[in-house]
């Protein structure tokens, strides 16, 4: 009887839903955006994969002592950067090595990290997870902890078709979540779509931005994903040589990835080590602080002269890049 019942239930399942596998999600490319770098090849975006990635992103068990989930340094209200911290806090009261960048539009990134050391976004989570001053964990320990949890077993099965919990599936799920963090609904975007208009000061700032900043921060992503030395003197304590740490090439000394400027008003402080506390102090750096060195970017040879009024206009324009829908989107918030 029981056996028969099982058969009936199974039969119903099959005919009922038609597809018992995970539910595909569409990755929509915002108007005007180029084709993304990450194409979900071998990692089809699904509702279940996204939800699993979201749970993992907010789960402290990915860290050694349970206190440092991904979200401890990547806070939604700060566009997934660390709010008001030059460097973030990691395991055992340690500082991180660099300023935590905001997480959005990551599918368009060619390389991850300020130095571009990560060539594929799927494996990026391994860096903070294993760094002794960040989450300080071991991959096998994390997988072991997840395997103890029945909820995860269910969620891995729902996302990938079986109970197997391994590093590949964990990474693919996190990738589904973080690449889904698309921010393209700022006032700037609405203006571009003809749904809003800039104030006069924002318009002045936009014109200035286009003539002075888009050499490195081209629209619509506001970064060209290149590595450049912007004349920030090296911090003698951190002694961070940037891209050269990865390539071992002298010509890459002091070069860092050009950050995208969307949500820039939320992601302070700025710079690879968070030394600039405000947008104004960054603009001051470009207009008068740039330090000359062998690898200084040619575009900054003469600095970027800006009057105080011009700085004000640029600042007002940059504020239009704040995407309040994104930072309030409940799909990206900590799951219940």
């Amino acid at each position, binding site marked *: 009887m029981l056996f028969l019942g099982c058969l009936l239930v199974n039969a119903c399942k099959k005919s009922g839903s038609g597809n018992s596998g995970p539910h595909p999600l569409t990755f929509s490319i915002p108007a005007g955006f180029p084709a993304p770098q990450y194409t979900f090849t071998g990692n089809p975006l699904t509702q279940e994969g996204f939800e699993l990635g979201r749970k993992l992103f907010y789960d402290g068990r990915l860290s050694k002592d349970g206190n440092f989930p991904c979200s401890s340094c990547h806070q939604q209200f700060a566009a997934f950067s660390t709010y008001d911290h030059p460097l973030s806090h990691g395991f055992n009261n340690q500082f991180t090595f660099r300023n935590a960048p905001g997480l959005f539009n990551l599918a368009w990134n060619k390389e991850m990290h300020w130095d571009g*050391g990560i*060539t594929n976004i799927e494996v990026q989570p*391994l860096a903070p997870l294993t760094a002794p001053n960040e989450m300080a964990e071991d991959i096998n320990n994390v997988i072991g902890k997840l395997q103890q949890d029945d909820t995860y077993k269910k969620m891995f099965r729902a996302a990938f078709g079986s109970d197997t919990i*391994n*590093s*590949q599936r964990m990474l693919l799920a996190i990738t589904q979540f973080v690449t889904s963090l698309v921010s393209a609904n700022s006032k700037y975007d609405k203006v571009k779509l003809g749904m809003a208009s800039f104030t006069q000061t924002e318009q002045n700032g936009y014109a200035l931005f286009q003539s002075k900043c888009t050499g490195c921060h081209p629209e619509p992503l506001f970064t060209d994903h290149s590595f450049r030395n912007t004349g920030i003197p090296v911090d003698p304590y951190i002694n961070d040589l940037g891209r050269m740490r990865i390539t071992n090439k002298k010509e890459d000394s002091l070069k860092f990835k050009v950050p995208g400027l969307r949500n820039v008003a939320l992601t302070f402080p700025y710079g690879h080590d968070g030394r600039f506390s405000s947008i104004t102090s960054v603009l001051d750096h470009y207009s008068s602080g740039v330090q000359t060195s062998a690898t200084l970017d040619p575009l900054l040879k003469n600095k970027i002269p800006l009057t105080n009024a011009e700085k004000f206009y640029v600042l007002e324009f940059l504020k239009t890049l704040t995407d309040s829908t994104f930072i309030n989107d409940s799909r990206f918030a900590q799951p219940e």
Partner: protein
Amino acid sequence: MKLTHLLHRVNLPKLCIVLLLGTAIISCQKELKFDEEPQKDHNLVLKFKPVVLYDSVPLVLGKAYTNYFKESFTPTAFKFYVHNFQMINTDSGKIFKLANDKYYLVDFSDSASTEIKISILPYVYNRISFSIGVDSAQNVSGAQTDALDPAKGMFWTWNTGYIMAKLEGTSPKSAQAGKFEYHIGGFSGTESVLKTVNLLFPYAQNLDLKPGKTSEMFITCDAYDWFYNPWDIKISENPVISTPGELAKQVAENYSKMFTVDSVFNE
């Protein structure tokens, strides 16, 4: 029956005649074999054995040895990636490649990982070739599993890429807490440490791999080679090599000579 033992017992002139006859027969067979209908594969079991001192002493993890520079060292980990196995007959120019190029991590702390079973098209071969390391495409293709699972501890997380081969342990000659660590990697451009080895069989004999049969091939891996020839790698000077670059390339060149087909047993 161990082929090499058999070869010991015959005298040299006789052996030459046998070999000549052998190659004559083989050359008749070769064209036929590849044109024939598909037949049962030959099962080849590769057994990797860690050794030191020019293949003369088995290496045991945790035991102390002395390298070419009279430096004492106690290996605690010895592992490397292999893939792209090919069986070759250089006389006929025939090369057999496995249809599915799988990666294997040979880890001498895990005996199961030191045996690799592959199915070979029956034929007479005189070389085996394989690659040490992980091809550049696999270094940038994201989250992977099985041998390439980053949880295997053979993946650099902040400058992403696979560690192709690892030899580590302790040595009184190391100024770095008495430890030495050779984590050899680098996949792009001039930093590449990918190596392909081409090995003869014992006494340069040909191997006639018969359909449906199994043979075991023992391949020794000499840890001594990591330190010497053509490059001098002294623990006292370089106890830690853990980034891609010139030193990693030198060690890789050294260890690419560490393999020897020691013996072959036919069913």
